[in-house]
Structures are given as structure tokens and as C-alpha cells.
């Protein structure tokens, strides 16, 4: 019985990784069709020589970076607050935002910005995307931080108070430094989620704020191309390493 399960598990893992592995293999394919015709790095090169793609990548990095910084700070503070004091409203709101279908979040934010813009000369652009990303990534940060806090020893904070530190000093000098691996892990997770977003971004982005996923989507829609393969592999490796690092940090110091 055990062997049967092991075989099944093997097939399952194959199923999970095969598509990406195939993409990776064919990103080195010297031909444009799905027949192997020799090894080349040509497609990787062409990605780097594509100014539009580079601009898209830059936009994605800026947006993810800004959203990550703000979400991580806000989320860490919120996670700590929830750990200290039951806040059902905030907790439920965060869970709800996590469960909300992206399309609903996206259109509601679009409608929100459209309404807000009546009061000013603002338009859709990088700033709206960043705000949107903060909105949906906050819950992820809080989740990671709360998980981390659950294994935190409260007597350390008491010792801090006992030795003369105020509550704020305790947070600043004891809790937060000890939470640092978890905070960084949350930030990496946040960055990944933000970088990869398509649905919400496509709805609230302006003409000058096209992100990399938006470009990949457009290219995928047009058809399969080895350039997209190469780009996909690079993105996957990049995001994958971030996640692995986040995982390692999360486990450190437990």
C-alpha cells in the first residue's frame, strides 16, 4: 500500500513540476517550435535587449518594493497589536481580504479610484497600483507575523518591563529585533505576491505603469514564444529563490 502511495506521490510531484521544467528546457531551444533543435541562450539575451520588458520589470520592482515596505511596516504593527489584544474586526477584515476574489478587489478599487479622482486631477498610475497592492498584501504580512508571534516567549517582554523598559521600548529593543527573521520572511512573501499580481494590477494601472505580468499576459495571449519562455524561467527562478529564502528565515531561530 505504501509503495502504491509513493508511486502516486511521485506522479503528483511530476505533475506539479513538469510544466515549469518543460518551459525551462524549451527556453534554451534554438527553434521557435516545440521541437528541440539545439541549445541556445539567444532568447535570454533578447529579453535583456527588449526595452519595453526592462521598463515593465522596473515598474514591477518599484511597485513591489514600495508596497512591500509599507505593507510590512503596517502589517508587523498590526500583527503585534492583534497578538496583544483581541481585535475581531481587524482580524476578520484581513481574512476577508485574503478570501476575496481578485476580480472583486480589482474592480472595487478601480471604482474607488474613479470616484476619488472626481475630487482631484489624479489619474491611474504607479501610485494607484501601489495602493492596491498594499490593500491585498497586508493580510499576508499579518499572517506570517502572527504565526511567528505564536511561538514567542512572553516572559521576555515581562523581563524587559521589569528591568525598566516601557512598553514601546520593549517592542523596539526586544520583540521587534527578535521578530526580524519573521519580518523579513513576511516582506519577501509580500514582494512575491505583489510582483506576480496580474488581475488587480491590470485594472488599476495607468498607461505609463505597465508591469511585467501585464506584458507577459499580452505576450501569452498573442501566442507562445521562446522569449516568453525565457522570461518565465527567469521570473520563476527569481521568485522561487525569494520564497526559499523567506522559508529559511522563517524557520531560523524557532
Amino acid at each position, binding site marked *: 500500500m505504501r509503495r502504491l502511495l509513493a508511486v502516486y506521490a511521485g506522479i503528483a510531484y511530476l505533475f506539479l513540476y513538469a510544466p515549469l521544467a518543460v518551459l525551462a528546457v524549451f527556453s534554451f531551444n534554438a527553434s521557435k517550435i*516545440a521541437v528541440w533543435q539545439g541549445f541556445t541562450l539567444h532568447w535570454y539575451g533578447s529579453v535583456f535587449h527588449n526595452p519595453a520588458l526592462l521598463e515593465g520589470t522596473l515598474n514591477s520592482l518599484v511597485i513591489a518594493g514600495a508596497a512591500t515596505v509599507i505593507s510590512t511596516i503596517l502589517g508587523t504593527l498590526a500583527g503585534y497589536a492583534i*497578538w496583544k489584544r483581541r481585535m475581531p474586526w481587524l482580524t476578520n477584515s484581513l481574512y476577508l481580504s485574503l478570501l476575496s476574489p481578485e476580480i472583486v478587489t480589482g474592480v472595487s478599487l478601480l471604482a474607488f479610484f474613479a470616484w476619488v479622482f472626481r475630487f482631484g486631477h489624479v489619474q491611474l498610475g504607479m501610485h494607484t497600483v501601489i495602493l492596491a497592492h*498594499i*490593500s491585498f498584501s497586508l493580510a499576508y504580512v499579518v499572517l506570517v507575523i502572527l504565526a511567528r508571534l505564536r511561538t514567542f516567549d512572553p516572559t521576555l517582554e515581562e523581563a524587559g518591563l521589569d528591568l525598566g523598559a516601557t512598553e514601546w521600548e520593549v517592542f523596539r529593543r526586544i520583540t521587534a529585533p527578535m521578530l526580524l527573521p519573521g519580518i523579513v520572511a513576511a516582506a519577501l512573501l509580500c514582494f512575491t505576491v505583489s510582483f506576480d499580481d496580474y488581475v488587480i494590477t491590470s485594472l488599476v494601472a495607468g498607461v505609463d505603469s505597465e508591469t511585467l505580468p501585464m506584458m507577459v499576459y499580452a505576450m501569452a495571449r498573442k501566442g507562445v514564444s521562446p522569449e516568453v519562455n525565457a522570461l518565465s524561467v527567469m521570473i520563476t527562478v527569481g521568485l522561487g529563490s525569494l*520564497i526559499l529564502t523567506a522559508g529559511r528565515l522563517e524557520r531560523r531561530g524557532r
Partner: protein
Amino acid sequence: MRRLSGGKESVRFQILARQFALPSTVTMIALFYVPLLIILAYSLLTRGPYGGVMLPLTLESYRRVFDPLYGQIFWRSIWIAAVSTALCLILAFPLAFYIARSGGRKTLLLNLVMLPFWTSFLIRTYAWMFLLRDTGLINTALLAVHAIREPLPLLFNDGAVILGLVYGYLPFMVLPLYATLEKLDDSLLQAAADLGATPWVAFWRVVIPLSKPGAVAGSLLVFIPCLGAYLTPDLMGGGKTVMIGNLVQNQFTTARDWPFGAAFSLLLMLIVLGTTRVLGKRGEELL
């Protein structure tokens, strides 16, 4: 009885906690609840001449939502989401069971399942396009060995969409199932064997019922995103498979019928809330 200052009963940190929670609370109100309220308002308004909305207030959008034409889209979405969830459940269960009984390698195996999920969803969907399309890898390979004479229409249909959804959300079913199965005490199975149950019977009478909370939580985590899916039906379905997500997106961009799109969004949101209420109570411990 220890009352520790870090726990929920802390007295000294209350003020600090409230201050810390404030920015996030403001953010949630401004960027989550207010937009939803605006969608609610928009769903009751009339479509504007150049997109957008205008008065008067009307229930016209809701009337159209329940029009049989759109009902088809609605039911199809539910059907696809349900089938995908069921498939995820069936496929994930043996895998979760295997990982839960893998001793020291448990965490590693589990992480290997979760890892693909955290890379790009878009790219993973695209990878299937690469495999399934008429000139994709599978068809090319099958044609090359003369197993088929014409390319198989593997892409751009409901089946492809379901495949894409199952592939995308399988890890979300594995995780809660694993969490429940991991807690399953070996001694229970031994006791069952002791009382005369064959492994097969023990499986059905002991393992399956005890894994219900995990199955419920996993179904929740899969069904809801599937129901509101946009990318997968769009790319894997090629525009032929229209689910609620595609409809809403269309209304807010090409069709420029915001009130109608808003109404459908709210309907989707209500279904999500309803499903969460119904299933969420049983899967709560895991979340």
C-alpha cells in the same frame, strides 16, 4: 494559573496595541471596505454615456444579473469551480496522506508541494498553454510518433480550464488535508486493525471521517478562488469559457457597463461570504 503579558489578556500593552492597529485599520477601511461600498452604490446606478456611472438609482443591473442569459455563465462558473474542487480533493488526498506518514521528510515534501504555488500563477498557466496548444509540446510529440493524425484540441475548452484550476490550487487542498492527517494518531488505525478491520475498511471508517475538517477547509480555499477565477478561463479557455470573473472584467473594461459589472461582483462576493459561513465554521480551526 499564569497570566502572561504577551497573551491576549495583557493589561499593560493595550494602548500601544490600539496605536499599532490604527494605520492598518485605516488602510482596510479606505482600501477595502470603502471600495466595496462604492461598488454597492455603483450597482444601483445607471450606466454612463462614456462608461462610469450616473443617476438615477435603479435595480436594472440586478434584474439583468438574474436574466437566464447570464444565468448560464453563473451556473457554469459554479459547475467548473465545483468540479475543480472535487478533483483537487480526490487528487490531493493520497498525496497529503503520503506526506503525513513520511516521518522526517514531512516538511521537505510539504514545502516541495507549496513551492510552485508561490512562483508566478500567470507563468504556470502559460506553461500549460505551451504544453497543450495545437503546436504545443504534447501534440507535437504525439504527432511525431504518429499516435494521432491531427492535433488534439487540448486547449481552449472547459476541460483545459478545469485542468488549469486544479493545477493552480492543488497545493491549497494539500495543506489543510495534511494538517488534519498529520494529527491522526497511528494508534487509532492499530486499534481498528485490532478490532478486526482490514486496512481498506479502516481507511473508510476511520481516516476519511477524521479528515473532514481538513477537507472542508481545503474545499473552501479552493472553491472560492476557482469561482472568481479570471486568468485561467481567459488564457486556458481562450475567451470561449466565460466565467463570472471574465464577465466582470469585461464589463469594467471593454463593455463599459460598470453598474452591471458591479452587481455581478457583489453577487460573487455574497456567494463567497455565504460559502465561508457555511463551510468556514467547520474549517475554522485550521485557518
